[in-house]
């Protein structure tokens, strides 16, 4: 076999084995939310900090607690322009997995709102992470 052909075949094999040329993994933007204080009345993170869906991610906004939450919490994403509920859900006490909130187009602006379960009281100084 010609040496150049053999080299081409080897390169092709290496590419196939190690995924060179495959689409790069999409990088979600992560934002840590330090000391989020929640009560039974819903309020926004950071006094209404506005976030947007990144251009580098998969379009999903997701939230997780970094330190184990002491109470069940309810987290949502709402639009910046009219506060329309985009999506959200409940996170059980002790759960530190991501909760998918909603999917939007890159640049879509939203605020993160949250509360504790009714009757459970407030939850102070817990850290969370937003993936968008």
């Amino acid at each position, binding site marked *: 076999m010609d040496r150049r052909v053999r080299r081409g075949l080897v390169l092709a094999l290496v590419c196939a084995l190690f995924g060179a040329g495959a689409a790069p993994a999409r990088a979600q933007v992560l934002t840590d939310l330090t000391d989020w204080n929640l009560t039974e*009345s*819903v*309020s*926004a993170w950071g*006094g*209404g*900090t*506005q*976030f*947007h869906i990144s*251009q580098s991610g998969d379009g999903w906004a997701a939230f997780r607690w970094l330190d184990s939450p002491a109470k069940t919490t309810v987290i949502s994403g*709402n*639009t*910046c*322009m*009219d*506060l*329309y*509920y985009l999506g959200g859900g409940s996170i059980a006490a002790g759960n530190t997995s991501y909760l998918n909130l909603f999917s*939007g*187009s*890159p*640049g*879509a*602006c939203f*605020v993160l*709102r949250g*509360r504790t379960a009714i009757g459970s009281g407030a939850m102070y100084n817990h850290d969370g992470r937003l993936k968008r």
Partner: protein
Amino acid sequence: MKRFIGAALVAALTAGTVAAATGHGAGASGDALTLASTLASAPARIVSEPVPAERARLVADAHAAAVPLPAGGTFSGIRWEQAGGQFGRAEIAAVLEYNAVCQWLRARRDGREVGVAERVLATVPSWPAWRGTEEGGVLKEIVGGGPLLDGVLADCDAARAREVEYASSRGLPPTR
């Protein structure tokens, strides 16, 4: 003196309420440009005592007169009551400001007050709600016609449809 200041405050709040409910006091182009410029140089806001959702519309109406809107624009479709809970005053102002950005983006695209819209939108990155933040950088790209513009305009169109429905359901004048 106290009475005078009190009367002036009530007058200002009333004017804001009327402006927000009936359209907007800044329908004239010159007013819009003045408001946009004033907003761009306004000091940063501080986090304040929370406002319960049932009072948020009143607080928003008082701030509305400071935010430029295209002719026929209102803030009446914002879902303060439905979102519920509580809001900071800076948060209320930020919602109004983003809503106004949407209205100016739609006006520019639809050929309404295009020259004014261009000039108002040029001041947007400096508005206090997002000045110096990541969101401010994104908005600069959007109002400049960057690749995110089409998606954001689609979101603004969807929001406008919702706002008309919500405002109408409450007997308020919907935005244009």
